[in-house]
């Protein structure tokens, strides 16, 4: 049974939402009452449920099978994270409520920022960007603002982009008026400093480099390139799409990165949802931090003072005489703000020790914080070093995704995130090692990061293309790998298993790939040419769709009208 369009089963007078008509009123619409019907059919609740459940059954998701989509990091989406994002305190909070009523939301944003800065080794983060490409835009805007602040707005207007880059990179640079210049590809899959250096000059605003790169390789010369850029007065933008290979292993900040977006929906497992929503926070170097856009969270935290206790160290010494110890609680009760810093605390402990008194207990849990976080939305108000370049978006970013990402981070912890990266890299290399005898590796059989790139050399003379091969994977129960990307490799096949796959799952996948590969080499083209055969649809006519675009449903013409045509 095919599932019709909702417009084919809905009816104008049906609704699946029970609402009582309001009491009579005189509209105050200024004469702008709707005169044209909308033309929206409704469905009852059971029809709605069935319609969308049946539609869903035509989809493939991570929960239904391995998703080897290189550069997309389709990993497990824990339902705990969905549950957390739906807590009323997160899901049912308005962005313009008084700041005093959203302290927990600001705390979450601050905590997420702490994790992101720690993992990247970079000092600042702009949380607002709505997705990876939006993060790129944010990073380049910060760069543009920094350049403008140096008075070089007119002259420094070129962004270098390797040929292997994601399409969003050049698109983003062009969007805000940068000129895009290509860095050529090399046979080893790496960007070479020798290719970059000749391009550098006073017109270079930035380079946009993906690292690990889209060929699945770590760029060993990233730091050198960063240094060269900095030397010539440019900035190093890192596309963080492949961050999942190195979380907890490498800090981009250590490699000279000035700005990098982080796809929370890739690396930190917020669900892709059939194409979004994502979230693309950008970490920024010291040099770019002042230009971060509004809004941002600032900590105006204060420490509470205990009500009781002696008023000075000497009084405390007096009080403790004969005991030889005081508790940290008693020390804190001195109400000295400086005690609440590490140095101040150490000084107090030393002073007491000098008086022969030991301090017992851990002070940290005794500090009662009046965590007062503020959200800076207005640059004029906040006049320190900040020179925000503007605003990326209404309100404060993808809070729903922040909650999920932080839930992921808390669940993994430092140890789990590092292990996840290692497992992701391990899985990709395991696939590489298990398929390299059949399929060709464009850059030789060397270790890859969390994705492994094959080309189509091995398909030469088989009559099977990368597309055919990918579509045949569907019949084996798999989503195709990323294909024809990166552009620098002919007939590219980019496979990223992620750390979410068990060894048994990887072994099944490898077996299916080997079976298909041998079939291709045996020129069993019939298995490939029309594939998929066992999917909800056979191959679709994409050319026809683009030639005469039908982008919406329109009611069928009445029979009489059809006859007249």
């Amino acid at each position: 049974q095919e599932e019709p369009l909702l417009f084919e089963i809905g009816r104008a007078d049906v609704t699946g939402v029970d609402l009582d008509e309001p009491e009579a009123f005189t509209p105050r619409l200024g004469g702008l009452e709707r005169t044209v019907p909308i033309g929206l059919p409704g469905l009852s609740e059971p029809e709605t449920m069935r319609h969308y459940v049946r539609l869903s059954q035509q989809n493939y998701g991570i929960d239904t099978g391995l998703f080897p989509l290189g550069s997309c990091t389709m990993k497990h989406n824990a339902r705990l994270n969905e549950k957390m994002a739906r807590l009323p305190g997160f899901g049912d909070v308005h962005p313009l409520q008084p700041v005093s009523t959203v302290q927990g939301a600001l705390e979450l944003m601050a905590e997420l920022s702490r994790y992101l800065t720690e993992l990247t080794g970079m000092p600042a983060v702009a949380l607002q960007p709505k997705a990876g490409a939006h993060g790129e835009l944010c990073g380049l805007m910060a760069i543009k603002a920094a350049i403008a602040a140096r008075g070089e707005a007119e002259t420094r207007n070129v962004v270098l982009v390797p040929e292997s880059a994601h399409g969003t990179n050049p698109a983003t640079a062009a969007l805000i008026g940068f000129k895009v210049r290509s860095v050529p590809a090399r046979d080893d899959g790496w960007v070479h400093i020798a290719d970059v250096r000749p391009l550098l000059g006073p017109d270079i605003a930035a380079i946009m480099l993906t690292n690990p790169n889209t060929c699945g390789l770590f760029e060993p010369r990233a730091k050198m390139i960063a240094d060269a850029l900095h030397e010539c007065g440019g900035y190093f933008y890192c596309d963080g799409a492949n961050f999942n290979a190195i979380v907890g292993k490498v800090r981009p900040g250590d490699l000279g990165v000035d700005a990098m977006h982080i796809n929370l929906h890739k690396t930190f497992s917020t669900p892709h949802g059939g194409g979004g929503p994502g979230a693309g926070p950008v970490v920024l170097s010291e040099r770019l931090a002042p230009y971060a856009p509004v809004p941002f969270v600032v900590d105006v935290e204060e420490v509470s003072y205990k009500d009781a206790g002696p008023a000075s160290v000497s009084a405390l010494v007096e009080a403790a005489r004969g005991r030889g110890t005081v508790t940290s609680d008693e020390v804190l009760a001195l109400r000295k703000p400086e005690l609440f810093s590490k140095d101040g605390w150490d000084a107090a402990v030393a002073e007491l020790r000098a008086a022969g008194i030991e301090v017992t207990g851990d002070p940290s849990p005794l500090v009662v914080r009046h965590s007062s976080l503020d959200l800076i939305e207005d640059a004029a108000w906040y006049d320190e070093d900040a020179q925000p370049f503007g605003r990326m978006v209404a309100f404060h970013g993808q809070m729903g995704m922040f909650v999920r990402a932080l839930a992921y981070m808390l669940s993994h912890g430092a140890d789990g995130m590092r292990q996840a990266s290692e497992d992701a890299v391990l899985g990709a290399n395991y696939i590489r090692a298990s398929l390299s005898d059949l399929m060709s590796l464009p850059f030789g059989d060397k270790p890859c990061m969390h994705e492994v790139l094959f080309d189509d050399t091995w398909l030469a003379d088989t009559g099977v293309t990368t597309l055919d091969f990918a579509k045949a994977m569907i019949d084996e129960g798999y989503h195709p790998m990323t294909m024809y990307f990166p552009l620098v490799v002919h007939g590219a096949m980019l496979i990223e298993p992620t750390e979410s796959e068990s060894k048994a799952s990887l072994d099944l996948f490898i077996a299916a790939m080997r079976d298909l590969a041998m079939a291709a080499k045996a020129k069993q083209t019939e298995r490939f040419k029309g594939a998929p055969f066992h999917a909800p649809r056979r191959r679709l006519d994409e050319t026809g769709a683009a030639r005469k675009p039908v982008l919406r449903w329109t009611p069928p013409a009445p029979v009489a009208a059809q006859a007249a045509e």
Partner: protein
Amino acid sequence: MRYLPLTEADRASMLARIGVAEIDALFADVPDGALLRDLPDLPRRKGEMEVERILGRMAARNVAASSVPFFVGAGAYKHHIPATVDHVIQRSEFLTSYTPYQPEIAQGTLQYLFEFQTQVAALTGMEVANASMYDGSTGTAEAVLMAHRVTRRRKAVLSGGLHAHYAEVVRTTTQMAGDEVVSLPPDVTASEDIIARIDDETSCVVVQSPDVFGNLRDLRPIAAAAQKHGALLIAVFTEAVSLGLVESPGAQGADIVVGEGQSIGVPLSFGGPYVGLFATRQKYIRQMPGRLCGETVDAEGRRGFVLTLSTREQHIRRDKATSNICTNSGLCCLAFTIHMSLLGEAGLSRLARINHAAAIKLADALAAVPGVEVMTKAFFNEITLRLPKPAAGVVETLAGQGILAGVPASRLYPGQGLDDLLIVASTEVNTDEDRAALVTALTGALA
């Protein structure tokens, strides 16, 4: 680690097949010194129970909209979402699927996107709609850039009724690209003469209705003026429910309609994720940003859907793309589509009447509070009040009493002399008791 299926034995046998002795051999390309030896300075893994406790504590420090009398709007609105919506969007096949580049196994996503595009086009009164933008504000910036492409002009005129954040996003985006933006000052009573600002250099004029202060605006004369000068009218809305009762921007002559779709099916979530609606005329489709889903047939002649016109997009066109957008608001589109399917025309228009009736009741009740002046005459579900003292303090006072009264205009327009204005929204979630509580508390705060 509950997330990770590999055992130590698995890892060892995988390393053996790869032919390396230890995992760091696979990180050999990382330069000396950059490979971390120690764990990051962050806590270790936690079980579900502990994660729930930590996040639960944070959540408890926020005041949930449904727990108090709630009148906050100004660009995001508290509406009731049927349980069906949230259930369906969590189905594995929707939640954990990818952008539908492989249409053979993504018809579920593609068909709902086609339904979404149709619903958005119908709702806005336009010919075509795309498969969503991030939200209303970024969609507005994209609309301005699109107008620049269509008209080959580079000057946008923004109404003083356009939401402050939207205007900021447009300015930030277009000024970075070197384009000109003329922003009119905040226009509380919809009395600006925007038509006078349209000239033959103008690429587009951007008008929001209902505007950020709640005013409904007649777009027809502006559309006529824009047309006369060869400029496009970009109509913006932040309250999609209004379109159940108010003449559509399309019927009023808009060339591009951009809106925030959050009101239909998407929770408040402290500002995101939301869903940007974007609709225009058929003739402009090749200048549109974002994804488009189109109807086609498969090899057996069965109807099916695909992403189409992707030559506009970044992954094909790179620096010549119409936008850099890639990931959009997929799952929020689904929420919108399901909620809209449940409402249908009958439900949406009734919901709109309920909202409008509630706003009228509220306006009348607030007008009777001593010292309060209702500034908004023609509105949908939101009005602006002038108070005898700064609104921000009043809002804070009422928040302390467990009432979220609205948005002080100074929050959106700081330092612009609008400190005594309060923007108050009213939807179907407000009861008579909520309204009475607001009136009582406001009366007290102003006494």
